[in-house]
């Protein structure tokens, strides 16, 4: 769930500027594979992580440039990127797991680290990645609410034309949104690679749809200008609870995939009902 949460934060920001990023899952795989391959080749960990970051940011930059300068619909651009990045990740690994036995142990431990809390004699584990996810929710929410450069995402998404006329650098702001999404994707890839101790070309399949569903459930609109990180958090929580419910109720877990689609359509339907009066 923490992984979905980080991706959903990035997706919400992109949705706010009237974009969409379908490439998150594949870029996650590509970034993870890059890091794992470099670490297997005895490259220092930090250098490998930086390389993964560069790969992710490069994908984000290409997305942003094609959308802004090329004037192509965001979903087509990122759909293309989705195929390219997943393909590249598969090509360089030939579809196999990439383990990195020689990497220092701290790297493969922090993704699984848990704080132990004693309550009434029982020990509860609080995963570090959950705390990181929650911290990012808090930070990005505050930034979106109070920090001017982040506030401008809303203005650009609400009306790019008006934002341009009032002197904002719309192109740069939109590209920044895609870069931020790529940044969160890289961080997710980092945590995934660390927690599973492998890089894998099939990481993040369907992640874009879960993130999209969560963001839309949380109040983001595809028409831009609206969206809330806390809402996306609630959306992720809801999808996770539904998934968990299937397991708890001994249901067929295969239905879980279908439930994400139903939630997405229901969220859009509710959004349509909510804005019905405005549109008349």
């Amino acid at each position, binding site marked *: 769930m923490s992984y979905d949460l980080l991706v959903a934060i990035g997706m919400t920001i992109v949705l706010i500027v009237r974009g*969409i990023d379908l490439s998150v899952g594949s870029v996650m795989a590509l970034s993870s594979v890059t890091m794992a391959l470099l670490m297997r080749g005895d490259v220092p960990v930090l250098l490998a992580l930086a390389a993964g970051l560069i790969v992710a940011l490069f994908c984000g930059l290409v997305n942003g440039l*094609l959308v802004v300068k*090329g*004037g*192509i*619909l965001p*979903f*087509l*651009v990122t*759909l*293309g*990127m*989705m*195929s*390219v*990045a*997943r*393909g*590249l990740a*598969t*090509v360089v690994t*030939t*579809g196999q797991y990439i383990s990195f036995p020689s990497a220092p142990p701290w790297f493969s431990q922090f993704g699984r680290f848990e704080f132990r809390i004693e309550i009434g004699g029982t020990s509860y584990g609080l995963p570090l990645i959950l705390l990181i996810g929650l911290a990012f929710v808090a930070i990005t929410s505050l930034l979106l609410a109070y920090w001017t450069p982040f506030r401008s995402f809303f203005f650009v998404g609400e009306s790019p034309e008006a934002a341009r006329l009032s002197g904002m650098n719309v192109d740069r702001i939109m590209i920044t949104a895609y870069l931020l999404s790529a940044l969160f994707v890289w961080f997710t890839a980092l945590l995934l690679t660390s927690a599973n101790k492998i890089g894998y070309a099939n990481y993040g399949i*369907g992640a874009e*749809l879960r993130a*999209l569903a969560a963001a*839309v459930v949380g109040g983001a609109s*595809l028409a831009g200008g609206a969206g809330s990180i806390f809402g996306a958090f609630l959306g992720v929580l809801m999808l996770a609870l539904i998934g968990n419910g299937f397991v708890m109720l001994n249901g*067929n877990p*295969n*239905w*879980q*995939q*279908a*439930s*994400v*689609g*139903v939630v*997405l*359509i229901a969220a*859009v*339907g509710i*959004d*349509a009902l909510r804005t019905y009066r405005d*549109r008349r």
Partner: protein
Amino acid sequence: MMNGLFHGLSRNVIVVQYIGLVTVTLATLIGFQVTFGNVLTGANLEVLAMNMVFEGIMALGMTFVIIMGGIDLSVASVYAFAEILVAKLMVQAGFPIAAAILITLIACSCLGALNGTLIVLFRVHPLIITMGILLTLRGINLAITDGHSVSGFSDEFLFLGQGKVFGVNLPIIFFGLAAAILGVLLANHRYFRQLYFIGGGERAARLSGVSVSRVKITIYMLSASLAGCAGVMAAAKYGAAHWAHGNLAELKAIAAVAIGGANINGGSGTIAGTVLGVIFLAVVHNAFVTSAVNPFWYDVVSGLMLLVAVSLSRFIALRNARAMLGLKQSKMDQLAAIHQH
């Protein structure tokens, strides 16, 4: 006169693009033939055509949807759903072939109607609705088959996918016939000409009396039915139905339409262009197979081709718009000159 000029101009641009596409396709074919020497054989051409024919059938429906300014991502899972449904009806419920196919096609067109209705009702971008249906249906496909494949068809049914008439595989004949009929209808029939109006400007079309909602639902039904036909024939071709069949087929169908010169924002596109796009994709895919390059590269290239095709179609649309503006300007200059005299 202005209109005539504009049409001539835009037709010229399209013809130039078609010629370019045909040239590149032929160059690829001949280049690989010269290098590897096993491309232009009957067996390979058959493989080439059969590899892309189902995506091609979906691309025909996608052409209509894209001209109308929509998009249908759900075709891939409708295709797999049709496979599974027709298989389950015949193998597990014991329906006769014709009844099973009929029920499957009706179910698929209902899914299309659901797509269209939700899009019209919620007034959100079709991308979201069809993606939701894609996801839901794929989940349903997985859940009702538990991830296993369904097989055990009769020989008569297998003929639909593997049989040949006059030495040509049945799915290819279906693709050719469907392309011919739909192409003629799209170019000439009043009902389908409306799609261009809707794609060019939905508001204007609505105000001039086109029942946009009804047309939209019908076209999504058409797209889903074609995907259903493809699915039925695919089940017969592979001899088994599996939920993961057709993964990313929607991407290939969209790429074929975009490569064929349709404006991805709606308002233009032809069946002939789509057919050329399908052939081009099939040739490129085949080139990968015959040249024994790591087939994993194929995803990379098909993604890149989608990006290039869309950029190209965007560029052509911009150039057309600029030419149109130029024409308007010269017309206005002429009028001004006449007034001064």
